[in-house]
């Protein structure tokens, strides 16, 4: 018997096989079927036939469903995709909350990251503060863009620069060349004794300048009239510190200072200098008029020992001016070489220390990179922990760009925290840093707009550098892989992380090698045989007491601990005084040799323990030795002279001609930066400026007291000031010592940061693989086997880092050592030691961590609830 309701139910069931027929549609069709059925019944069909007719009228389920599917596709295509706003303020709080929550949850990780970044940023800040101070040297001169120093070619080798010019050059060019608006000479006149009432002291940096000095250099005159300071030849201008020393709070201008117990000089001005870093260092200024008044021939073109500075018209053609100045030199002193270039005053200091600026900036950036790498590595290593968060964000509609923004934002926030910490660190360590660099550095400089912008830029760059890789890494992550439950996320990017570890350790190894090499060179300098004995030599400046020198010398020699005394003109600290016009037996017409000239006395050889190569040294037993010469081996070689002893030699400047009586073995009379150059020695008591005493290493204090007492009896008005030669010589290598020290600190910091990073990385790795360790242990692996498994990978990386670092540091240090004529070799052991220390540090870091994990109870590792 046909049952309509059953038939309709069956028919509906058939329709429901297609999921497009939802309830609403199904109702449509059912009603239609019923209408059609009713119509067929009305037409006279029986129930079953009417139903069949109605069903066929409605059509097959498949064809109808396919039409609905088409509609659904149209609808899907037509639905506008979700376009979340570019900036969703509601999410910002969420981002911040996540960062803070992560900081709290992973304390060790956050500590490593932030401290690393803070230390890196602090290093950068310190170095860039120092660089900014160095770069600002001589930057304060009002006409700085047109202020030049004249650089001549050296007389013998014109390609070598020489800063000294003939005495009358500066006034001559000012008179002849309209382009020269002002010009001044500068001559250092050494140490002078100043006396005001009871205050007696030596001033080390006394300088003679022309009146234009005040129009050219912008050291502000805080007392005195700039146009009239030098109207009197016996005038002196003091720096604020010097004036303070003699006059305290009193007005200095108008007071009289007795110089060298001989000249009364009127203080006419006080300059501020402390705040104005300059390559010109002075305590007081005298006028060239004083030299004229003292009888110096101001028109002597042969007197070539003066620095010359010019202020040019802004429109001047430099090449033209240079040629014109050269013309003036050639016209008046044809034998002197011409002007090589005009050097901008503000570039002088920078050119001198460019190497250091580049070197230290590189080191600062290296340390920062090491810190940034920590950030990248630790962030991506932790990705497993954040994979679910990222997937949820993606599923909820976060775009790639949103995730990049979020992670970059996190990194900026961390950098910001690190930057604040860095500023604290900087203010904490600034005094020590100032002490090492001997520069006046202050955080106040940060108030300067450019510098502040620079630091903010560095901080932003750091945030960007350390955040961009993790950000891209996370944004790339596929949400499905994570949500499916199994996460390999932590292992993703492992090869990049390994690469970064290699970079980090390479940088550290490079720093270690550089530090070791610099320290080795300093040691080499300090311990190398200079060819003379510098230890236990005490020296005293003679001042104006040359004539009494012999008497003092004889008296002092009575002391048993004073072994020998020699009077000389110059200490072994530099080239000294030179000449290129001596003549000698067998000299070819065109053959010129640049000699350094040294005046010594008969006891020189004994005092300094210099060895003879040939002939003999000056001796009082031969009266003719007063006109004789002693050369060094380099001179004999440069002169191409065979068997020099007994040949004549002439030094035209003093019109002295005599025999060469001996040749001393080469010794380093100037810095080890320079090769040993030709020099000759002669006896000339009028030139002696120092008394050098070789004393016994026993009872030094008593010896010094004895010397002081004796000195007082001979020169009550000139207080004694003694120094030890080895200390003074050591000061020549101060910059090396300083860089060695600084580099040592930075290297330690870089290693510390790398180690922290490695520590973090290995901790996360061990945590991720703790189950693996547990299973290995259960299956019978030994603790040693597990430690070996984990350390192997990382040690390989550190070894690769060495392979990268060795050639790089070899090249860098080779370049640096080129600065020295006499240098230590690049020893293989430094490279091996650096490599080993990196391996050791890495091994200890990884080993201890792994050991701890391997020794844990496997049951604890495997338990997961």
């Amino acid at each position: 018997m046909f049952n309509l309701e059953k038939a309709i139910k069956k028919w509906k069931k058939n329709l429901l096989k297609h999921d497009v027929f939802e309830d609403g549609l199904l109702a449509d069709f059912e009603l239609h079927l019923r209408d059609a059925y009713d119509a067929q019944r009305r037409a006279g069909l029986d129930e079953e036939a009417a139903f069949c007719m109605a069903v066929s009228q409605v059509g097959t389920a498949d064809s109808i469903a396919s039409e609905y599917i088409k509609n659904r596709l149209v609808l899907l295509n037509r639905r506008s995709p979700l376009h979340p706003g570019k900036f969703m303020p509601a999410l910002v709080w969420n981002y911040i909350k996540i960062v803070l929550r992560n900081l709290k949850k992973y304390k060790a990780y956050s500590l490593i990251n932030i401290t690393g970044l803070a230390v890196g940023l602090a290093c950068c800040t310190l170095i860039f503060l120092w660089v900014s101070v160095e770069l600002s040297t001589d930057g304060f001169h009002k006409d700085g863009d047109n202020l030049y120093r004249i650089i001549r070619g050296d007389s013998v080798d014109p390609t070598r620069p020489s800063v000294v010019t003939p005495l009358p050059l500066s006034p001559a060019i000012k008179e002849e060349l309209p382009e020269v608006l002002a010009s001044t000479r500068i001559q250092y006149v050494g140490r002078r004794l100043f006396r005001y009432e009871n205050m007696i002291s030596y001033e080390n940096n006394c300088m003679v300048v022309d009146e234009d000095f005040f129009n050219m250099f912008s050291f502000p005159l805080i007392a005195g009239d700039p146009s009239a300071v030098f109207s009197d030849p016996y005038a002196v201008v003091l720096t604020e510190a010097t004036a303070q020393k003699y006059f305290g709070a009193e007005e200095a201008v108008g007071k009289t200072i007795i110089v060298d117990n001989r000249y009364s000089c009127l203080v006419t001005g006080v300059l501020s200098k402390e705040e104005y870093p300059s390559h010109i260092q002075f305590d007081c200024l005298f006028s060239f008029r004083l030299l004229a008044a003292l009888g110096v021939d101001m028109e002597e073109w042969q007197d070539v020992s003066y620095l010359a500075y010019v202020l040019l018209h802004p429109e001047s053609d430099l090449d033209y001016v240079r040629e014109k100045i050269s013309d003036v030199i050639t016209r008046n002193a044809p034998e002197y070489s011409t002007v090589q270039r005009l050097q901008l005053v503000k570039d002088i200091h920078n050119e001198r220390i460019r190497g250091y600026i580049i070197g230290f900036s590189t080191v600062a950036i290296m340390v920062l990179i090491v810190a940034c790498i920590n950030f990248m590595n630790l962030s991506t290593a932790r990705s497993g922990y954040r994979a679910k968060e990222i997937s949820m964000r993606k599923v909820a509609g976060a775009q790639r760009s949103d995730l990049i923004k979020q992670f970059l934002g996190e990194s900026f926030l961390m950098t910001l925290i690190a930057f604040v910490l860095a500023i604290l660190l900087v203010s904490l360590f600034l005094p020590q840093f100032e002490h090492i660099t001997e520069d006046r550095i202050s955080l106040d400089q940060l108030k300067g707009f450019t510098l502040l912008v620079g630091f903010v830029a560095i901080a932003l760059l750091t945030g960007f550098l350390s955040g961009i890789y993790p950000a891209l890494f996370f944004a790339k992550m596929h949400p499905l892989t994570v949500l499916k439950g199994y996460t390999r996320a932590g292992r993703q990017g492992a090869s990049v992380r390994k690469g970064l570890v290699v970079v980090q350790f390479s940088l550290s190894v490079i720093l270690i090698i550089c530090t070791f090499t610099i320290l080795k060179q300093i040691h080499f300098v300090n311990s190398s045989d200079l060819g003379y004995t510098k230890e236990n030599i005490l020296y005293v400046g003679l001042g104006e007491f040359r004539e009494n020198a012999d008497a003092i010398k004889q008296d002092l020699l009575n002391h048993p601990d004073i072994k020998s005394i020699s009077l000389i003109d110059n200490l072994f600290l530099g080239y000294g005084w030179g000449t290129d016009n001596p003549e000698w037996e067998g000299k070819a017409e065109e053959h010129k040799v640049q000699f350094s000239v040294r005046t010594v006395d008969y006891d020189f050889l004994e005092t300094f323990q210099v060895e003879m190569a040939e002939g003999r040294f000056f001796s009082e037993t031969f009266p003719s030795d007063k006109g004789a010469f002693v050369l060094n081996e380099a001179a004999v070689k440069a002169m191409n002279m065979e068997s020099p002893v007994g040949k004549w030699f002439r030094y035209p400047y003093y019109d002295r001609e005599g025999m060469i009586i001996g040749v001393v073995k080469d010794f380093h009379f100037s810095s080890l930066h320079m090769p040993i150059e030709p020099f000759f020695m002669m006896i000339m008591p009028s030139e002696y400026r120092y008394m050098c005493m070789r004393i016994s290493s026993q009872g030094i204090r008593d010896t010094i007291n004895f010397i002081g007492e004796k000195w007082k009896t001979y020169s009550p008005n000139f207080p004694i000031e003694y120094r030890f030669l080895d200390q003074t010589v050591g000061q020549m290598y101060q910059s090396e010592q300083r860089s060695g020290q600084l580099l040592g600190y930075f290297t330690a910091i870089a290693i510390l940061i790398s180690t922290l990073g490695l520590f973090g990385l290995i901790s996360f790795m061990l945590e991720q693989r703790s189950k693996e360790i547990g299973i290995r242990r259960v299956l019978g692996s030994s603790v040693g086997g597990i430690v070996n498994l984990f350390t192997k990978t990382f040690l390989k990386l550190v070894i690769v880092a060495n392979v990268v670092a060795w050639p790089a540091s070899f090249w860098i240090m080779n370049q640096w050592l080129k600065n020295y004529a006499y240098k230590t070799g690049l020893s293989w052991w430094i490279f091996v030691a650096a490599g080993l220390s990196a391996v050791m540090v890495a091994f200890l870091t990884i080993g201890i961590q792994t050991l701890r994990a391997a020794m844990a109870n496997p049951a604890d590792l495997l338990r997961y609830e």
Partner: protein
Amino acid sequence: MISKTLMAASTRPIILAILSKGEDYGYSIIQKVKNISGGSLEWTDGMLYPVLQRMEMDDLIVSKWTLSGENRPRRYYKITPKGRKELASELNSWRNVWQALVRLADPLLVQD
């Protein structure tokens, strides 16, 4: 026999034309089409509903459920202003097509 393509193209304008006279429900629309065309337009009833759904998606018609006189719930469709515009434009198009076709095939029949 009307081709499948022509049938598909004419469905929407015909439904719009029927609804322009007043609201109606599915079964009734089918009946009207059959009666007017004298059986030359053979629609499969079930195919009407996806078309109606699509037209509703396109905002040409709107629908609402009401209880009919026979105490049967029915979904009534009503033309929208947009639907009316569409109808006018369709009529115009069909007229143009028709005129062009006739002019080409049997020019005498055309009386402008």
